[in-house]
């Protein structure tokens, strides 16, 4: 423990020591309220550093590998520019979703050149966080740092203090967006620190689809931390996809924190495929009769560590939550699922169902799963189920009895297990992108798209 603490302190103090020289370059220096937020983040991070397994919410995830490296931000718009040449245009095109408004964040900075925002209707505002902090600071004030506080944990604290840019999205009342909005996060260089903060405000009775994509044009290690705060107005519908396909050596922290007003519907699809060590938090606060549907698929191989945390706060009556997370772990990979559902005393008639299913493909693979229900109301319908195991022998036999050999039957069932989550994607181009990522991660011979 003492060694761990030592590394922690050393790593933390190096970041903290560099902060004063970095701070003037960070957006929103002239805004006292933002300075306060950054300061709160910095002091929390100085005190506790990155989260440690001693914290209950980090029990199964040791981030000390991050602390052994020192990542540096790509500072300023100008110094970030040269990296853009390193990006192959056809590779970029493959990452951008067709028929979507796509906003690029390269190494933690907005890139206008790489963004596609033509034909944005009047009822939608999309701009970089840096620009929004200049143009609409008073407007942002009640949102930024309100869905999640720096005290949440070390990564949120770090993100609050260090964020260099991000995206601000505002969908105005009654807007039904014809196209999805994509936030395309790209890392292009070794040891870069990409720290971004997004604020998404979808007003009453709107319909929005948001996709956050994390990819790399490098095979090296880097640290990407991205925090998205979402505010869904009354009767708003937001479908939020996250495709995390970071490089094999990358470290990733991504947090989505949602506030749902009454009757708001939030659907999340979380695809956690990349990174050496990746952690994803999805928290949502449900207002009266609001609904959330959280879906997740994490696929780990080699020595990957993929951690998924969800927290569903039923604050008011008649809320409905559905959750299905699936994991497939091969080789020495380790998967974590911690799902918490909290039903407040006032949240009567809550209807909540949480499921986590895991497949282990190797003897060295591991999954730690911890569903938690905390119920303070007395008239609710809540359930949860967890499985960790191998493929169903009945299904294997069924396929064998239909002429399929055992190995192919196993591959088919594994792929089918994962594909069930992919199939929930409503956008064809995204579906194909995600499917492609899934296929890359199933190197077993004979896995075929034709099975679908």
């Amino acid at each position, binding site marked *: 423990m003492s060694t761990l603490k030592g590394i922690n302190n050393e790593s933390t103090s190096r970041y903290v020591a560099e902060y004063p020289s970095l701070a003037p370059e960070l957006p929103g220096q002239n805004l006292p309220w933002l300075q306060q937020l950054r300061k709160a983040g910095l002091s929390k991070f100085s005190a506790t550093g990155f989260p440690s397994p001693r914290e209950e919410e980090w029990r199964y995830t040791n981030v000390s590998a991050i602390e052994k490296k020192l990542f540096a931000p790509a500072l300023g718009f100008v110094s970030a520019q040269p990296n853009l040449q390193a990006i192959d245009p056809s590779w970029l095109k493959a990452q951008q979703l067709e028929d979507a408004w796509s906003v690029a964040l390269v190494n933690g900075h907005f890139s206008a050149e790489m963004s596609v925002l033509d034909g944005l209707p009047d009822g939608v505002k999309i701009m970089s966080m840096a620009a929004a902090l200049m143009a609409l600071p008073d407007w942002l004030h009640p949102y930024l740092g309100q869905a999640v506080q720096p005290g949440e944990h070390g990564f949120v604290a770090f993100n609050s203090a260090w964020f260099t840019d991000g995206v601000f999205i505002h969908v105005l009342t009654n807007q039904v967006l014809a196209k999805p909005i994509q936030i395309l996060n790209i890392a292009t260089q070794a040891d870069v620190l990409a720290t971004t903060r997004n604020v998404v405000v979808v007003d009453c009775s709107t319909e929005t689809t948001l996709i956050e994509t994390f990819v790399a044009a490098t095979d090296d290690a880097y640290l990407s931390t991205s925090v998205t705060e979402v505010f869904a107005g009354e009767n708003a519908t937001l479908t939020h996809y996250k495709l995390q396909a970071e490089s094999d050596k990358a470290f990733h922290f991504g947090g989505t924190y949602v506030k749902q007003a009454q009757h708001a519907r939030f659907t999340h699809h979380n695809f956690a495929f990349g990174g050496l060590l990746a952690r994803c938090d999805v928290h949502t606060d449900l207002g009266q009769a609001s609904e959330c549907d959280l879906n997740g698929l994490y696929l780990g191989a080699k020595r990957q560590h993929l951690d998924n945390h969800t927290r569903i706060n039923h604050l008011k009556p008649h809320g409905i939550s559905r959750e299905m997370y699936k994991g497939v772990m091969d080789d020495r990979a380790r998967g974590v699922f911690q799902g918490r559902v909290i039903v407040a005393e006032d949240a009567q008639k809550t209807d909540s169902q949480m499921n986590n299913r895991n497949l282990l493909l190797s003897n060295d693979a591991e999954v730690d799963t911890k569903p938690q229900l905390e119920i303070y109301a007395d008239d609710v319908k809540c359930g949860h189920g967890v499985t960790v195991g191998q493929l*169903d*022998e*009945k*299904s294997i*036999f*069924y*396929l*064998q*009895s*239909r*002429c*399929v*050999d*055992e190995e192919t039957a196993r591959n*088919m*069932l594994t*792929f*089918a*297990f*994962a*594909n*069930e989550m992919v*199939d929930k994607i409503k956008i064809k181009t995204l579906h194909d992108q995600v499917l492609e990522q899934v296929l890359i991660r199933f190197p077993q011979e004979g896995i075929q798209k*034709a*099975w*679908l």
Partner: protein
Amino acid sequence: MLLIENLHVSVGDKPILKGINLQVNAGEIHAIMGPNGSGKSTLSHVLSGKSGYEITQGSIVYQGKDLTDMPPEIRAREGIFLAFQYPVEIPGVSNIYLLKAALNAIRKHHGQPEVDAMDFLTLVKHKVKLLEMDEKFLYRAVNEGFSGGEKKRNEILQMAILEPKLCILDETDSGLDIDALKVVADGVNSLRSPDRAFVMITHYQRLLDYIKPDFVHVLAHGQIVKSGGPELALELEEKGYSWVETSQPEVAA
């Protein structure tokens, strides 16, 4: 086609089948009836090669080949088809894909080229109509969200397309309403042919009103205690299983 001699099967240490003798020739339909726990389903599983069953004595020979160590998929490719009592849902794998994969596996096994995509589709659509199924089922995941009756129809659809030589129907009538039962029976009857045999495992006589067997065997306590023609099923219906449960096995000729 199928010759079972003195077959003893155990699950773990528990003997389930205790000396089954049965000969099934091409073109014949055999019904195997029996009370719950008599070993009916075990027999169907052992014939199709499900693991977890140990043959402690006796033999099963299919078309001159010993089945004891033959993996289930090879049996299937050789023409043995088990229509499951509880067809398994396979989310994520489409019905039509499985049909095509199975058909091609059989063709490959017999040294034939893969089926032409258009011919396959024509064949499948024809059979789907025959079984009064909706074409949409083809593009859904195997059995996923199907009703009990739809699952059973799907089994018969697979059978109609794969054209097996030995069809084993395990409690195909269970969970079917009378209309679905008629459709399934018509499907089976349309597959009757001089070079194909059926073994129907059933608890009730009902199915046999629609699919007329040539032979009826009664299984109790892991042995065939009575064999006869279709009239045996009616007698059984009248007198109940207690009539045969006390009977001793007939000495094999």
